[in-house]
Protein backbone atom coordinates (compact mmCIF):
# COMPACT_ATOMS: atom_id res chain seq x y z
CA UNK A 1 0.00 0.00 0.00
CA UNK A 2 2.94 2.28 0.65
CA UNK A 3 3.34 2.10 -3.08
CA UNK A 4 0.38 4.29 -3.77
CA UNK A 5 2.08 7.17 -2.06
CA UNK A 6 5.31 7.08 -3.93
CA UNK A 7 4.07 8.94 -6.95
CA UNK A 8 2.08 11.60 -5.21
CA UNK A 9 2.25 15.05 -6.65
CA UNK A 10 4.59 17.34 -4.78
CA UNK A 11 2.68 19.90 -2.75
CA UNK A 12 3.83 23.50 -3.16
CA UNK A 13 5.73 24.33 -0.02
CA UNK A 14 4.96 28.00 0.14
CA UNK A 15 1.48 29.50 0.14
CA UNK A 16 2.97 32.78 -1.06
CA UNK A 17 3.37 31.14 -4.41
CA UNK A 18 0.18 31.72 -6.40
CA UNK A 19 0.03 28.31 -7.95
CA UNK A 20 -1.57 28.12 -11.41
CA UNK A 21 -3.20 24.84 -10.40
CA UNK A 22 -5.45 26.46 -7.85
CA UNK A 23 -8.20 25.15 -5.62
CA UNK A 24 -11.70 24.30 -6.91
CA UNK A 25 -13.47 27.62 -6.38
CA UNK A 26 -10.62 29.67 -7.82
CA UNK A 27 -10.57 27.46 -10.88
CA UNK A 28 -14.35 27.87 -11.25
CA UNK A 29 -14.14 31.68 -11.12
CA UNK A 30 -11.27 31.57 -13.58
CA UNK A 31 -13.43 29.45 -15.91
CA UNK A 32 -16.24 32.03 -15.84
CA UNK A 33 -13.72 34.80 -16.47
CA UNK A 34 -12.39 33.02 -19.56
CA UNK A 35 -15.91 32.60 -20.95
CA UNK A 36 -16.83 36.24 -20.30
CA UNK A 37 -13.71 37.54 -22.01
CA UNK A 38 -14.24 35.21 -24.94
CA UNK A 39 -17.85 36.32 -25.45
CA UNK A 40 -16.84 39.95 -25.10
CA UNK A 41 -14.20 39.60 -27.82
CA UNK A 42 -16.53 37.81 -30.23
CA UNK A 43 -19.46 40.16 -29.48
CA UNK A 44 -17.24 43.22 -29.83
CA UNK A 45 -15.98 41.98 -33.17
CA UNK A 46 -19.50 41.48 -34.56
CA UNK A 47 -20.65 44.81 -33.18
CA UNK A 48 -17.74 46.60 -34.81
CA UNK A 49 -18.44 44.79 -38.04
CA UNK A 50 -22.13 45.76 -37.96
CA UNK A 51 -21.26 49.42 -37.26
CA UNK A 52 -18.50 49.60 -39.84
CA UNK A 53 -20.66 48.17 -42.60
CA UNK A 54 -22.34 50.95 -44.55
CA UNK A 55 -20.68 53.69 -42.49
CA UNK A 56 -16.98 53.26 -43.14
CA UNK A 57 -16.84 50.36 -45.60
CA UNK A 58 -19.12 49.48 -48.51
CA UNK A 59 -21.55 46.66 -47.54
CA UNK A 60 -20.90 44.79 -50.80
CA UNK A 61 -17.29 44.37 -49.66
CA UNK A 62 -17.80 43.08 -46.13
CA UNK A 63 -21.56 42.62 -45.82
CA UNK A 64 -22.70 42.69 -42.16
CA UNK A 65 -23.64 40.17 -39.48
CA UNK A 66 -27.36 41.01 -39.72
CA UNK A 67 -27.38 40.63 -43.51
CA UNK A 68 -25.47 37.36 -43.30
CA UNK A 69 -27.89 36.03 -40.70
CA UNK A 70 -30.97 36.84 -42.78
CA UNK A 71 -29.32 35.36 -45.90
CA UNK A 72 -28.63 32.21 -43.95
CA UNK A 73 -32.27 31.94 -42.88
CA UNK A 74 -33.77 32.64 -46.30
CA UNK A 75 -31.14 30.48 -47.98
CA UNK A 76 -32.17 27.46 -45.96
CA UNK A 77 -35.89 28.28 -45.97
CA UNK A 78 -36.59 28.84 -49.63
CA UNK A 79 -33.25 28.50 -51.39
CA UNK A 80 -31.24 25.49 -52.45
CA UNK A 81 -28.68 25.97 -49.70
CA UNK A 82 -29.62 22.67 -48.08
CA UNK A 83 -29.08 20.94 -51.41
CA UNK A 84 -25.66 22.60 -51.81
CA UNK A 85 -24.67 21.62 -48.28
CA UNK A 86 -25.81 18.07 -48.87
CA UNK A 87 -23.79 17.76 -52.07
CA UNK A 88 -20.59 18.97 -50.39
CA UNK A 89 -21.25 16.74 -47.41
CA UNK A 90 -21.69 13.77 -49.71
CA UNK A 91 -18.35 14.42 -51.43
CA UNK A 92 -16.61 14.52 -48.06
CA UNK A 93 -18.57 11.62 -46.60
CA UNK A 94 -17.29 9.35 -49.38
CA UNK A 95 -13.81 10.77 -50.03
CA UNK A 96 -12.71 11.32 -46.46
CA UNK A 97 -13.22 7.86 -44.90
CA UNK A 98 -11.95 6.08 -47.98
CA UNK A 99 -8.88 8.35 -48.08
CA UNK A 100 -8.21 8.05 -44.37
CA UNK A 101 -8.56 4.25 -44.31
CA UNK A 102 -6.39 3.69 -47.38
CA UNK A 103 -3.79 6.15 -46.08
CA UNK A 104 -3.68 4.36 -42.74
CA UNK A 105 -3.57 0.95 -44.43
CA UNK A 106 -0.66 1.93 -46.67
CA UNK A 107 1.22 3.62 -43.82
CA UNK A 108 0.79 0.42 -41.82
CA UNK A 109 1.96 -1.74 -44.72
CA UNK A 110 5.04 0.43 -45.23
CA UNK A 111 5.80 0.20 -41.53
CA UNK A 112 5.62 -3.58 -41.61
CA UNK A 113 7.39 -4.31 -44.86
CA UNK A 114 10.84 -2.91 -45.36
CA UNK A 115 10.83 -4.10 -48.96
CA UNK A 116 7.61 -2.26 -49.77
CA UNK A 117 8.93 0.88 -48.12
CA UNK A 118 12.24 0.68 -49.96
CA UNK A 119 10.57 0.34 -53.34
CA UNK A 120 7.78 2.87 -52.97
CA UNK A 121 9.03 5.48 -50.53
CA UNK A 122 10.79 7.72 -53.10
CA UNK A 123 7.80 7.46 -55.41
CA UNK A 124 5.37 8.47 -52.70
CA UNK A 125 7.58 11.37 -51.63
CA UNK A 126 7.80 12.57 -55.23
CA UNK A 127 4.03 12.36 -55.62
CA UNK A 128 3.65 14.25 -52.37
CA UNK A 129 5.72 17.03 -53.92
CA UNK A 130 2.85 17.79 -56.30
CA UNK A 131 0.63 20.57 -54.96
CA UNK A 132 -2.45 18.42 -54.74
CA UNK A 133 -5.05 21.05 -55.50
CA UNK A 134 -3.29 21.54 -58.84
CA UNK A 135 -4.47 18.07 -59.77
CA UNK A 136 -8.12 19.03 -59.34
CA UNK A 137 -8.65 20.05 -63.00
CA UNK A 138 -7.25 16.70 -64.04
CA UNK A 139 -9.81 14.94 -61.89
CA UNK A 140 -12.53 16.94 -63.62
CA UNK A 141 -11.19 15.69 -66.95
CA UNK A 142 -11.06 12.10 -65.73
CA UNK A 143 -14.16 11.87 -63.60
CA UNK A 144 -16.45 14.57 -64.98
CA UNK A 145 -17.92 17.61 -63.27
CA UNK A 146 -20.19 15.61 -60.97
CA UNK A 147 -19.71 14.04 -57.58
CA UNK A 148 -16.77 11.74 -58.32
CA UNK A 149 -14.19 14.35 -59.33
CA UNK A 150 -14.68 16.08 -55.96
CA UNK A 151 -14.58 12.77 -54.13
CA UNK A 152 -11.27 12.21 -55.91
CA UNK A 153 -9.76 15.48 -54.68
CA UNK A 154 -11.00 14.90 -51.12
CA UNK A 155 -9.54 11.40 -51.25
CA UNK A 156 -6.17 12.66 -52.46
CA UNK A 157 -5.79 15.28 -49.74
CA UNK A 158 -6.94 12.94 -46.97
CA UNK A 159 -4.94 9.97 -48.18
CA UNK A 160 -1.48 11.53 -48.17
CA UNK A 161 -1.82 13.16 -44.78
CA UNK A 162 -3.03 9.96 -43.15
CA UNK A 163 -0.43 7.92 -44.95
CA UNK A 164 2.50 10.06 -43.81
CA UNK A 165 1.37 10.38 -40.22
CA UNK A 166 0.60 6.66 -39.91
CA UNK A 167 3.94 5.74 -41.43
CA UNK A 168 5.69 8.09 -39.01
CA UNK A 169 3.83 6.41 -36.17
CA UNK A 170 4.92 2.98 -37.38
CA UNK A 171 8.56 4.06 -37.44
CA UNK A 172 8.38 5.67 -34.01
CA UNK A 173 6.78 2.64 -32.44
CA UNK A 174 8.56 1.02 -29.53
CA UNK A 175 9.98 -2.25 -30.84
CA UNK A 176 9.94 -3.69 -27.34
CA UNK A 177 6.11 -3.89 -27.33
CA UNK A 178 6.21 -5.95 -30.51
CA UNK A 179 8.99 -8.17 -29.16
CA UNK A 180 7.09 -8.78 -25.94
CA UNK A 181 3.87 -9.61 -27.75
CA UNK A 182 5.63 -11.95 -30.14
CA UNK A 183 7.38 -13.73 -27.28
CA UNK A 184 3.87 -14.28 -25.90
CA UNK A 185 3.04 -15.98 -29.20
CA UNK A 186 0.79 -13.15 -30.23
CA UNK A 187 0.71 -12.75 -33.99
CA UNK A 188 -1.48 -12.04 -37.01
CA UNK A 189 -4.78 -10.36 -36.33
CA UNK A 190 -4.22 -9.95 -32.61
CA UNK A 191 -0.75 -8.45 -33.07
CA UNK A 192 -2.12 -5.92 -35.56
CA UNK A 193 -5.25 -4.85 -33.75
CA UNK A 194 -4.32 -5.36 -30.10
CA UNK A 195 -0.72 -4.14 -30.21
CA UNK A 196 0.29 -2.22 -33.34
CA UNK A 197 -2.81 -0.12 -33.90
CA UNK A 198 -3.23 0.83 -30.24
CA UNK A 199 0.48 1.68 -30.10
CA UNK A 200 0.19 4.06 -33.04
CA UNK A 201 -3.34 5.25 -32.25
CA UNK A 202 -2.24 8.72 -31.10
CA UNK A 203 -0.74 9.14 -34.57
CA UNK A 204 -3.85 7.78 -36.26
CA UNK A 205 -6.03 10.33 -34.52
CA UNK A 206 -3.60 13.13 -35.28
CA UNK A 207 -3.76 12.11 -38.94
CA UNK A 208 -7.54 11.94 -39.01
CA UNK A 209 -8.03 15.21 -37.19
CA UNK A 210 -5.50 17.21 -39.18
CA UNK A 211 -6.96 15.89 -42.43
CA UNK A 212 -10.54 16.99 -41.66
CA UNK A 213 -10.06 20.63 -42.76
CA UNK A 214 -8.11 19.42 -45.77
CA UNK A 215 -10.96 17.15 -46.81
CA UNK A 216 -13.26 20.19 -46.85
CA UNK A 217 -10.65 22.19 -48.78
CA UNK A 218 -10.52 19.36 -51.33
CA UNK A 219 -14.28 19.41 -51.86
CA UNK A 220 -14.38 23.20 -52.24
CA UNK A 221 -11.43 23.36 -54.62
CA UNK A 222 -13.04 20.67 -56.74
CA UNK A 223 -16.25 22.67 -56.83
CA UNK A 224 -14.42 25.90 -57.63
CA UNK A 225 -12.84 24.32 -60.67
CA UNK A 226 -16.03 23.03 -62.23
CA UNK A 227 -19.39 22.18 -60.75
CA UNK A 228 -23.09 22.87 -60.86
CA UNK A 229 -23.83 22.50 -57.17
CA UNK A 230 -22.21 22.35 -53.73
CA UNK A 231 -21.16 24.97 -51.18
CA UNK A 232 -18.05 25.81 -53.21
CA UNK A 233 -20.21 26.43 -56.27
CA UNK A 234 -22.57 28.55 -54.14
CA UNK A 235 -19.69 30.68 -52.83
CA UNK A 236 -18.18 31.24 -56.27
CA UNK A 237 -21.53 32.03 -57.83
CA UNK A 238 -22.49 34.45 -55.03
CA UNK A 239 -19.13 36.23 -55.21
CA UNK A 240 -19.55 36.57 -58.98
CA UNK A 241 -22.74 38.59 -58.53
CA UNK A 242 -21.47 40.45 -55.44
CA UNK A 243 -23.89 38.76 -53.04
CA UNK A 244 -21.25 39.07 -50.34
CA UNK A 245 -23.59 37.99 -47.54
CA UNK A 246 -24.11 34.67 -49.33
CA UNK A 247 -20.35 34.20 -49.63
CA UNK A 248 -20.09 34.50 -45.88
CA UNK A 249 -23.04 32.12 -45.46
CA UNK A 250 -21.11 29.54 -47.48
CA UNK A 251 -17.98 30.10 -45.43
CA UNK A 252 -19.94 29.71 -42.20
CA UNK A 253 -21.45 26.42 -43.39
CA UNK A 254 -17.97 25.09 -44.18
CA UNK A 255 -16.67 26.22 -40.83
CA UNK A 256 -19.51 24.48 -39.03
CA UNK A 257 -18.85 21.33 -41.06
CA UNK A 258 -15.20 21.28 -39.99
CA UNK A 259 -16.00 22.02 -36.35
CA UNK A 260 -18.68 19.32 -36.15
CA UNK A 261 -16.47 16.70 -37.79
CA UNK A 262 -13.58 17.61 -35.52
CA UNK A 263 -15.77 17.42 -32.42
CA UNK A 264 -16.99 13.96 -33.41
CA UNK A 265 -13.40 12.86 -34.03
CA UNK A 266 -12.35 14.37 -30.72
CA UNK A 267 -15.07 12.46 -28.86
CA UNK A 268 -14.01 9.19 -30.44
CA UNK A 269 -10.38 10.00 -29.70
CA UNK A 270 -11.06 10.76 -26.05
CA UNK A 271 -12.81 7.43 -25.66
CA UNK A 272 -10.22 5.44 -27.56
CA UNK A 273 -7.23 7.04 -25.86
CA UNK A 274 -8.59 7.14 -22.33
CA UNK A 275 -5.59 5.09 -21.24
CA UNK A 276 -3.33 8.02 -21.99
CA UNK A 277 -2.45 10.51 -19.31
CA UNK A 278 -3.21 13.94 -20.63
CA UNK A 279 -0.83 16.77 -20.06
CA UNK A 280 -2.96 19.88 -20.04
CA UNK A 281 -0.45 22.64 -20.26
CA UNK A 282 3.26 22.39 -19.99
CA UNK A 283 4.51 24.67 -17.30
CA UNK A 284 7.92 26.19 -17.49
CA UNK A 285 8.75 27.59 -14.13
CA UNK A 286 11.04 30.57 -13.83
Amino acid at each position, binding site marked *: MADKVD*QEQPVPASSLDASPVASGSVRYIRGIGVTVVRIAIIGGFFLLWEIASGRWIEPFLISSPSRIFSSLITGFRDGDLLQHTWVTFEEIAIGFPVGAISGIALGYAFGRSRLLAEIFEPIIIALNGIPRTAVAPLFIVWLGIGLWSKVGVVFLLTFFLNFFITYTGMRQM*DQEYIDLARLMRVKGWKLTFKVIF*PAISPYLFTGIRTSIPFAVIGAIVGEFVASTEGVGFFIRMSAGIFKTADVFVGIIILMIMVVVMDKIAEMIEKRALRW*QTQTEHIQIQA
Partner: protein
Amino acid sequence: MADLAQASLESAQNQNDFVIKVEDVFKVFQTPSQANLSALEKITLDVRHGEFVTVVGPSGCGKSTLLKLIAGLSASSAGRILFQGDEIRGLNTRVGYVPQESKLFPWLTVEENVGFGLDPKRYSRPDRERQVNYFINLAGLAGFEKYYPAQLSGGMSKRASIIRALAYEPPVILMDEPFGPLDAQTRMVLQDELLKIWEQKRQTIVFVTHDLVEAVALADRVVVMTHRPGKIKDIIQVRMSRPRNIFEIHRQEGFDDAYSRLWNIFRHELNIGTH
Protein backbone atom coordinates in the same frame (compact mmCIF):
# COMPACT_ATOMS: atom_id res chain seq x y z
CA MET B 1 2.27 -48.16 -10.35
CA ALA B 2 4.58 -48.59 -13.27
CA ASP B 3 3.20 -45.38 -14.75
CA LEU B 4 3.82 -43.54 -11.54
CA ALA B 5 7.38 -44.80 -11.30
CA GLN B 6 7.92 -43.88 -14.92
CA ALA B 7 6.58 -40.40 -14.30
CA SER B 8 8.75 -39.79 -11.27
CA LEU B 9 11.76 -41.10 -13.14
CA GLU B 10 11.07 -38.69 -15.96
CA SER B 11 10.69 -35.77 -13.65
CA ALA B 12 13.92 -36.72 -11.92
CA GLN B 13 15.62 -36.71 -15.27
CA ASN B 14 14.13 -33.36 -16.07
CA GLN B 15 15.56 -32.02 -12.86
CA ASN B 16 19.01 -32.89 -14.06
CA ASP B 17 18.43 -31.76 -17.60
CA PHE B 18 19.70 -28.43 -18.69
CA VAL B 19 16.93 -26.24 -19.97
CA ILE B 20 19.35 -23.74 -21.48
CA LYS B 21 22.78 -24.64 -22.84
CA VAL B 22 24.84 -21.74 -24.11
CA GLU B 23 27.80 -23.08 -26.07
CA ASP B 24 30.75 -20.90 -27.07
CA VAL B 25 28.58 -17.98 -28.03
CA PHE B 26 30.04 -14.81 -29.53
CA LYS B 27 28.17 -11.65 -30.36
CA VAL B 28 29.71 -8.93 -32.49
CA PHE B 29 27.91 -5.68 -33.24
CA GLN B 30 28.69 -3.57 -36.25
CA THR B 31 29.01 0.05 -35.20
CA PRO B 32 28.01 2.84 -37.62
CA SER B 33 31.69 3.52 -38.30
CA GLN B 34 32.01 -0.06 -39.60
CA ALA B 35 34.14 -1.05 -36.64
CA ASN B 36 33.28 -4.31 -34.93
CA LEU B 37 32.25 -4.18 -31.34
CA SER B 38 32.56 -7.44 -29.52
CA ALA B 39 29.78 -7.68 -26.94
CA LEU B 40 30.06 -11.30 -25.90
CA GLU B 41 33.05 -13.61 -26.15
CA LYS B 42 33.02 -17.35 -25.77
CA ILE B 43 30.07 -17.55 -23.40
CA THR B 44 29.38 -21.04 -22.11
CA LEU B 45 26.66 -21.54 -19.57
CA ASP B 46 24.16 -24.20 -18.54
CA VAL B 47 20.95 -23.52 -16.69
CA ARG B 48 19.07 -26.33 -14.98
CA HIS B 49 15.32 -26.80 -14.73
CA GLY B 50 13.87 -24.78 -11.89
CA GLU B 51 17.10 -22.97 -11.22
CA PHE B 52 17.32 -19.30 -10.29
CA VAL B 53 20.41 -17.93 -12.00
CA THR B 54 21.52 -14.33 -11.72
CA VAL B 55 23.94 -12.71 -14.14
CA VAL B 56 25.90 -9.86 -12.64
CA GLY B 57 28.39 -7.49 -14.16
CA PRO B 58 29.13 -3.83 -14.85
CA SER B 59 26.95 -1.95 -17.31
CA GLY B 60 27.88 -2.60 -20.89
CA CYS B 61 29.18 -6.09 -20.23
CA GLY B 62 26.61 -7.71 -22.49
CA LYS B 63 24.28 -9.09 -19.85
CA SER B 64 21.19 -7.85 -21.66
CA THR B 65 22.57 -9.04 -24.98
CA LEU B 66 22.85 -12.53 -23.55
CA LEU B 67 19.16 -12.45 -22.57
CA LYS B 68 18.20 -11.21 -26.04
CA LEU B 69 20.07 -14.15 -27.56
CA ILE B 70 18.27 -16.65 -25.32
CA ALA B 71 14.94 -15.05 -26.24
CA GLY B 72 15.90 -15.30 -29.91
CA LEU B 73 15.36 -11.57 -30.34
CA SER B 74 18.85 -11.33 -31.77
CA ALA B 75 21.12 -13.91 -33.34
CA SER B 76 24.53 -14.92 -32.08
CA SER B 77 27.56 -14.31 -34.28
CA ALA B 78 29.09 -17.67 -33.46
CA GLY B 79 28.33 -20.63 -31.23
CA ARG B 80 24.86 -21.91 -30.43
CA ILE B 81 22.25 -21.90 -27.73
CA LEU B 82 20.17 -24.99 -27.01
CA PHE B 83 16.79 -24.58 -25.42
CA GLN B 84 15.27 -27.79 -24.06
CA GLY B 85 17.63 -29.57 -26.43
CA ASP B 86 16.74 -27.64 -29.59
CA GLU B 87 18.96 -25.01 -31.08
CA ILE B 88 17.35 -21.57 -30.97
CA ARG B 89 16.70 -20.24 -34.43
CA GLY B 90 14.47 -17.21 -34.58
CA LEU B 91 12.12 -16.15 -31.86
CA ASN B 92 12.06 -18.35 -28.75
CA THR B 93 8.43 -18.27 -27.63
CA ARG B 94 9.11 -20.63 -24.73
CA VAL B 95 10.51 -17.82 -22.60
CA GLY B 96 8.78 -15.03 -20.75
CA TYR B 97 10.55 -11.69 -20.82
CA VAL B 98 10.55 -8.98 -18.18
CA PRO B 99 12.22 -5.89 -19.63
CA GLN B 100 14.12 -3.19 -17.78
CA GLU B 101 11.26 -0.75 -17.87
CA SER B 102 7.92 -2.36 -17.11
CA LYS B 103 6.65 -1.98 -20.67
CA LEU B 104 3.10 -2.88 -19.78
CA PHE B 105 0.87 -2.26 -22.77
CA PRO B 106 -0.40 1.20 -21.81
CA TRP B 107 -3.69 0.75 -23.69
CA LEU B 108 -4.66 -2.34 -21.71
CA THR B 109 -5.80 -2.50 -18.10
CA VAL B 110 -3.82 -4.42 -15.50
CA GLU B 111 -5.94 -7.54 -15.91
CA GLU B 112 -5.83 -7.35 -19.71
CA ASN B 113 -2.06 -7.01 -19.54
CA VAL B 114 -1.68 -9.98 -17.22
CA GLY B 115 -3.96 -12.13 -19.37
CA PHE B 116 -2.44 -11.00 -22.65
CA GLY B 117 -0.20 -14.02 -23.14
CA LEU B 118 -2.91 -16.55 -22.26
CA ASP B 119 -3.71 -18.24 -25.52
CA PRO B 120 -7.49 -18.75 -25.89
CA LYS B 121 -6.77 -22.17 -27.39
CA ARG B 122 -4.96 -23.32 -24.26
CA TYR B 123 -7.01 -21.51 -21.65
CA SER B 124 -10.80 -21.47 -21.62
CA ARG B 125 -12.40 -18.24 -20.48
CA PRO B 126 -12.93 -19.35 -16.86
CA ASP B 127 -9.39 -20.78 -16.73
CA ARG B 128 -8.06 -17.56 -18.04
CA GLU B 129 -9.94 -15.50 -15.46
CA ARG B 130 -8.80 -17.81 -12.68
CA GLN B 131 -5.20 -17.60 -13.80
CA VAL B 132 -5.28 -13.80 -14.05
CA ASN B 133 -6.95 -13.45 -10.66
CA TYR B 134 -4.50 -15.84 -9.06
CA PHE B 135 -1.49 -13.83 -10.20
CA ILE B 136 -3.06 -10.46 -9.49
CA ASN B 137 -3.72 -11.57 -5.92
CA LEU B 138 -0.26 -13.06 -5.63
CA ALA B 139 1.28 -9.74 -6.63
CA GLY B 140 -0.94 -7.74 -4.29
CA LEU B 141 -2.66 -5.94 -7.15
CA ALA B 142 -6.21 -6.90 -6.18
CA GLY B 143 -8.45 -3.87 -6.57
CA PHE B 144 -6.33 -2.47 -9.38
CA GLU B 145 -7.53 -4.84 -12.11
CA LYS B 146 -9.24 -2.09 -14.10
CA TYR B 147 -6.44 0.45 -13.77
CA TYR B 148 -4.38 1.52 -16.73
CA PRO B 149 -0.58 1.35 -16.40
CA ALA B 150 -0.32 5.17 -16.40
CA GLN B 151 -2.31 5.16 -13.15
CA LEU B 152 0.07 2.80 -11.35
CA SER B 153 3.14 3.57 -9.27
CA GLY B 154 6.55 2.32 -10.36
CA GLY B 155 6.48 -0.64 -7.98
CA MET B 156 3.00 -1.69 -9.03
CA SER B 157 3.76 -1.62 -12.75
CA LYS B 158 6.85 -3.68 -12.03
CA ARG B 159 4.76 -6.31 -10.28
CA ALA B 160 2.24 -6.33 -13.10
CA SER B 161 5.05 -6.66 -15.64
CA ILE B 162 6.49 -9.66 -13.80
CA ILE B 163 3.19 -11.51 -13.43
CA ARG B 164 2.38 -10.80 -17.07
CA ALA B 165 5.43 -12.92 -17.94
CA LEU B 166 4.60 -15.58 -15.33
CA ALA B 167 0.88 -15.90 -16.05
CA TYR B 168 1.11 -17.84 -19.30
CA GLU B 169 3.55 -20.25 -17.70
CA PRO B 170 6.56 -20.29 -20.00
CA PRO B 171 9.19 -22.75 -18.74
CA VAL B 172 11.82 -20.01 -18.46
CA ILE B 173 11.56 -16.37 -17.40
CA LEU B 174 14.23 -13.91 -18.46
CA MET B 175 14.49 -10.74 -16.38
CA ASP B 176 16.56 -7.79 -17.47
CA GLU B 177 17.39 -5.64 -14.42
CA PRO B 178 13.72 -5.42 -13.56
CA PHE B 179 14.27 -3.68 -10.22
CA GLY B 180 16.93 -1.28 -11.50
CA PRO B 181 15.09 2.03 -11.36
CA LEU B 182 13.24 1.45 -8.08
CA ASP B 183 14.03 2.89 -4.67
CA ALA B 184 15.74 0.67 -2.09
CA GLN B 185 12.64 -0.20 -0.03
CA THR B 186 10.37 -1.01 -2.97
CA ARG B 187 13.17 -3.03 -4.43
CA MET B 188 13.49 -5.20 -1.34
CA VAL B 189 9.75 -5.72 -1.09
CA LEU B 190 9.65 -6.81 -4.72
CA GLN B 191 12.65 -9.12 -4.36
CA ASP B 192 10.87 -10.74 -1.45
CA GLU B 193 7.65 -11.11 -3.45
CA LEU B 194 9.49 -12.46 -6.45
CA LEU B 195 11.08 -15.19 -4.35
CA LYS B 196 7.74 -16.07 -2.78
CA ILE B 197 6.04 -16.30 -6.16
CA TRP B 198 8.92 -18.29 -7.57
CA GLU B 199 8.87 -20.75 -4.69
CA GLN B 200 5.28 -21.65 -5.59
CA LYS B 201 5.93 -22.51 -9.24
CA ARG B 202 9.71 -22.91 -9.50
CA GLN B 203 9.94 -21.77 -13.07
CA THR B 204 13.49 -21.37 -14.29
CA ILE B 205 14.65 -17.77 -13.99
CA VAL B 206 17.62 -16.02 -15.55
CA PHE B 207 17.88 -12.66 -13.85
CA VAL B 208 20.26 -9.92 -14.96
CA THR B 209 21.38 -7.30 -12.45
CA HIS B 210 24.29 -5.02 -11.63
CA ASP B 211 23.59 -5.16 -7.90
CA LEU B 212 25.86 -7.63 -6.10
CA VAL B 213 23.60 -8.04 -3.05
CA GLU B 214 20.57 -8.68 -5.23
CA ALA B 215 22.54 -11.17 -7.31
CA VAL B 216 23.49 -13.23 -4.24
CA ALA B 217 20.20 -12.84 -2.38
CA LEU B 218 18.04 -14.26 -5.15
CA ALA B 219 20.22 -16.83 -6.84
CA ASP B 220 21.14 -20.47 -6.72
CA ARG B 221 24.10 -19.56 -8.89
CA VAL B 222 25.64 -16.21 -9.77
CA VAL B 223 27.23 -15.81 -13.18
CA VAL B 224 29.89 -13.11 -13.02
CA MET B 225 30.62 -11.24 -16.22
CA THR B 226 33.45 -8.84 -16.96
CA HIS B 227 33.53 -5.62 -18.83
CA ARG B 228 33.56 -5.42 -22.62
CA PRO B 229 34.06 -7.74 -24.33
CA GLY B 230 31.68 -9.64 -22.08
CA LYS B 231 33.14 -12.88 -20.81
CA ILE B 232 32.11 -15.15 -17.99
CA LYS B 233 34.66 -14.63 -15.25
CA ASP B 234 33.31 -17.09 -12.76
CA ILE B 235 30.18 -18.87 -11.63
CA ILE B 236 29.50 -18.83 -7.91
CA GLN B 237 27.31 -21.36 -6.16
CA VAL B 238 25.18 -19.70 -3.47
CA ARG B 239 24.77 -22.08 -0.54
CA MET B 240 21.88 -20.47 1.28
CA SER B 241 18.77 -22.34 2.32
CA ARG B 242 15.34 -21.45 1.01
CA PRO B 243 12.95 -19.85 1.71
CA ARG B 244 15.15 -16.84 2.29
CA ASN B 245 14.48 -13.72 4.28
CA ILE B 246 15.38 -10.87 1.95
CA PHE B 247 15.10 -8.27 4.70
CA GLU B 248 17.76 -9.93 6.81
CA ILE B 249 19.67 -11.57 4.04
CA HIS B 250 23.03 -10.48 5.49
CA ARG B 251 22.51 -12.60 8.55
CA GLN B 252 21.68 -15.72 6.66
CA GLU B 253 24.25 -18.47 6.63
CA GLY B 254 26.10 -18.68 3.35
CA PHE B 255 25.50 -15.06 2.30
CA ASP B 256 28.83 -13.71 3.48
CA ASP B 257 30.74 -16.49 1.83
CA ALA B 258 29.10 -15.99 -1.57
CA TYR B 259 29.15 -12.23 -1.34
CA SER B 260 32.83 -11.98 -0.44
CA ARG B 261 33.79 -14.31 -3.25
CA LEU B 262 31.81 -12.14 -5.62
CA TRP B 263 33.27 -8.95 -4.21
CA ASN B 264 36.81 -10.32 -4.53
CA ILE B 265 36.30 -10.78 -8.24
CA PHE B 266 35.00 -7.26 -8.67
CA ARG B 267 37.69 -5.74 -6.49
CA HIS B 268 40.24 -7.44 -8.68
CA GLU B 269 38.53 -5.97 -11.74
CA LEU B 270 38.55 -2.49 -10.24
CA ASN B 271 42.23 -2.73 -9.40
CA ILE B 272 43.08 -3.57 -12.96
CA GLY B 273 41.07 -0.54 -14.00
CA THR B 274 43.01 1.88 -11.79
CA HIS B 275 46.56 0.75 -12.59
